């Protein structure tokens, strides 16, 4: 079992008292799975993603990545886990504006201290079709190109898990389709476990499992379709 959530809850304090965003959630994701989390806005999809990825801590319950309890790790140790095992793709791309496409892709590998980051990054950029744009800065790239850079960055260092938060949400249908294609192709090549939060029905349908989020509760929405 690569990722496990046990009795995972998240409550936040608001001016009108505590608000429970996640009801107790139990879910297990196997290595190599592709999982879509779907649901309405505000249903708690992104919160779940942030807990699974160790970006935030649960109010109670536990997340385990390769049997390591995230709640027992401090922020630095969780960062290490992310550096070693996790890649990310975001709706708003989140490239570093002061780094070129190539440097953005190299970044996770360099932070983790990997040698040969540049070679790997160039290969990945070539795979996403941006071999001639590697020296461009994010503001010189279109939305679709930026997301392709983000995908390349997510796969550098060959993470075991890839979390994607609405990866096509900011793109038009055509570009979104291309990006989606790329994501799944690379995922296949690298055998990564993919957890994707999305509104996009077509994207969700390409995943092996679809989890439905509704008012903080998670349910299995579809069986294996692949």
């Amino acid at each position, binding site marked *: 079992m690569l990722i496990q959530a046990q009795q995972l809850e998240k409550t936040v304090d608001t001016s009108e008292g505590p608000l429970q965003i996640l009801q107790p959630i139990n879910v297990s994701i196997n290595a190599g799975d592709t999982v879509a989390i779907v649901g309405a806005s505000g249903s708690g999809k992104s919160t779940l993603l942030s807990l699974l990825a160790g970006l*935030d801590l649960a109010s109670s319950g536990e997340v385990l990545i390769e049997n390591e309890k995230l709640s027992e790790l401090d922020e*630095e140790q969780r*960062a290490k*886990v992310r550096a070693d095992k996790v890649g990310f793709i975001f709706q708003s791309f*989140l490239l*570093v*504006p*002061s*780094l070129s496409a190539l440097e953005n892709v190299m970044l996770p590998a360099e932070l983790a201290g990997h040698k040969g980051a540049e070679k790997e990054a160039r290969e990945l950029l070539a795979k996403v079709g941006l071999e001639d744009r590697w020296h461009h800065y994010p503001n010189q790239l279109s939305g679709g190109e930026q997301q392709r850079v983000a995908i390349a960055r997510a796969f550098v260092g060959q993470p075991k898990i890839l979390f994607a938060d609405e990866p096509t949400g900011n793109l038009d249908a055509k570009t979104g389709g291309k990006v989606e294609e790329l994501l799944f192709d690379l995922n296949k090549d690298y055998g990564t476990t993919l957890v994707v939060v999305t509104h996009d029905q077509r994207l969700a349908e390409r995943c092996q499992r679809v989890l439905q989020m509704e008012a903080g509760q998670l349910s299995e929405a579809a069986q294996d379709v692949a």
Partner: protein
Amino acid sequence: MWHKISFRLLKQELRRGELTIMALAIILSVTAVLSLSIFSDRLQAGLTERSSEFLAADRVLSSRRDIPQEWLEQAGQMNLKTAWKVVFNSMAFADGNMTLVDVKAVSEGYPLRGELEIADQPFGQGYVARGLPAEGEAWVASQLFQALQLEIGDDIEVGNSSFKVTKVVTYEPDVGFSVFTDSPNVLIRHSQLEETGLIQPGSRVRFNVLMAGESNAIDAYEDWLLPRLNDDTHSWRSIEDGDSPLSRSLNRAERFMMLASLLGVVLAATAVAVAAQRYCQRNYDVVAIFKTLGASRQQIRRIFMLHLLLLTAASVAIGMALGWALQYLVIEWVAQKLDATLPQAGWQPYVLAGATGVISAVMFTLYPLFRLVSIPPLRVLHRQLTAGNAVRWLQWILSGGTIYALLVIYSQQWWLSTALFAGGAVAAVLLLGLGRLFISASRKAGMQAGSSWRLAMAGLQRRAAANSVQMLSFSTAIMLLLLVIVLRNDLLEDWKSQLPADAPNYFAINIAEDKVDDMQTMFERENIPSTDLYPIVPGRLTHINGEKLLDEVTKEDRDDNEAEGREGIGRELSLTWRDTLPPNNELTAGEWWGDDAEPQVSVELNVSERLDIKVGDELRFNLGGEEFTVPVTSLRKADWNTLQPNFYMIFNTSTLEDFPATYITSFRLGEDRKDELYQLFKPFPQTSLIDLDAMINQIREVIGQVSLAIVFVLVLVIIAGALVLVAQVQASMEERQKELVILRTLGAPGKLLSRSITYEFLVLGAISGLIATLAMEVSLFILQNQVFNMTPVIHWKLWLLGPVFGAVVVAVLGRLSCHRLIQRNTAQLIRKLA
């Protein structure tokens, strides 16, 4: 690996101009501190050197007895130049006429500082003298030609010797300024002193050795000499100890420069702080991404620390180079303009400037950096997340402590720094409160206005907390700017008023009573502006409230006479009478007599303080053997900086009018009419003239130098202020940008947006300007009272000008910064935000 990432980020941040303001702020503070401290060091040294002309030397060793030759030799060995100047009173005779003169016997090299000027005819145009009178010759003052009916080439007798008069002395740098005590000068060679036979044991002679040289040589000699001096017979003087007519002005100028530079440094530091905060805020997302991708805190800390260090090092280096070049250019310019060379400065300014740059860069960036490192990775999903405010006090301690440290380092006066700092802290708190108050008031007003205004006011209100901080820095910048500008004007005005263009340039003394009317008629006929004619009766103050005063002429005399008794003035005074209070005099206690015929006297304030005289005290005077006692009925403040006759003691007319008196006046005669002087005063042979032009010019020149220096300081402070304003406006852009996108998307026309932004900044600027004016008046009042000894005035014009200036400058800056944002189309903006 981290340093590679750091370099890459830095390279692009620099290219995109993200660090420009911060770099500029550091560069500016280093440039300002370096150029100002070198400049003021050099100017100070130059001014001291120039002022030394009033002594004709850097130091003067003065004694009533002859000075051991060994002391001169020692000075020579220590690389000091020396020259003798022996001064005494004697009668001079020429062709049956005689008069009292000051004989000045000087040796080769005199004057060591400044120039001696001579003319070929009495009251003629002076030129610089090369050397001294030859053996057997004397150069004498113009007045002596009148008194002794001399012509060039005549002989005068002094003691046993006879001297041929070959030149007229028109200017001696060390002539001093005492209208009543100086007799006309006769300049002879020191080597001929002995022949005159006038130097006898017990004769009243002042032996002076003038010395000049490098300041460290002087210090070394001073160390050697001081233990050998006898306090009672010797005096060792530098220009700072002297009553130079400039010392007060110089003092003020120095304080002004120091204060202005301090404020400049504080402004630059503020700019660093604002820019650093903004820089870090802009990098919140980057740090969140880094952390999401697995970066540790340590990696992030190192990456951004390296930025800071590199930026600081580069900026300090650039600042040093710029500062050096700037002061070099300005000094060259000043030197050229004023025909002076200024000595080099030491190494201290470089250390000071470097330290200022590093301290302000590091200390003001620490807190923002601390927050930056603590940004949670979750920000990638929740953009509103920032670092906690838990250690806000750390920021206050760091920035407060840094500003205080800078103040102390720079002024080296902890009391001044503490006062400024405490005042600043109180002002900041008040300003924050006031700012919020004004914003909420203007919000109410804005609700009744058109849509651009409403939008602007809503914006102001929404960002009230951020705005009041922003307003604090606007206000501070505007206030410091106003402060420096106003202070500069007040200082210059103050100096100008001492030396108006029509200031009298001659004193006429010894005017006989029966010639007073003739002279007044002559002034009127010839259209020569003059002051009133004041009668002078010489007399001594002998008792205060029946207590006998020490007749202390010299300390030696005191030792010989009695050791006890109340301190007196110790010399004959020039007494006068008048019905009205003289111009430039101000009553500080008691009442002026008007028509009251009862004998009474009005005493000048400084003398009253020195002798502890109060209104109602009884003073006894001795006028040529006749004694009388009068009550003090008023105390007066006289302006000693004006070139008009001033008196310690003024009596009412009935008290003195029966005593024989001579008269004194001062008048102005333009350069072009100087040659008429001889003819004009021919009918008044007893009258002596004292030419003040040389002294006035000297004062003007020095004031000119100082004024230039002040303009230079002003420019630097203005740049620093502008930098703060720009940094602050830029810092607020981020926030505005989001709103702009929303409003734009909702279809708000560009005009509405740009107007509302302009109005918002207009109001912010106006309020800041108003607060700044208020704060400026208060600080100015304290400064003028406590630091500059000036009379504080309220600057009504600024109450209008301050807010208008603030509104216009801030609005223009704000509008310019927003310009690009408004010009962009909505899609571009959204993308930029995403």
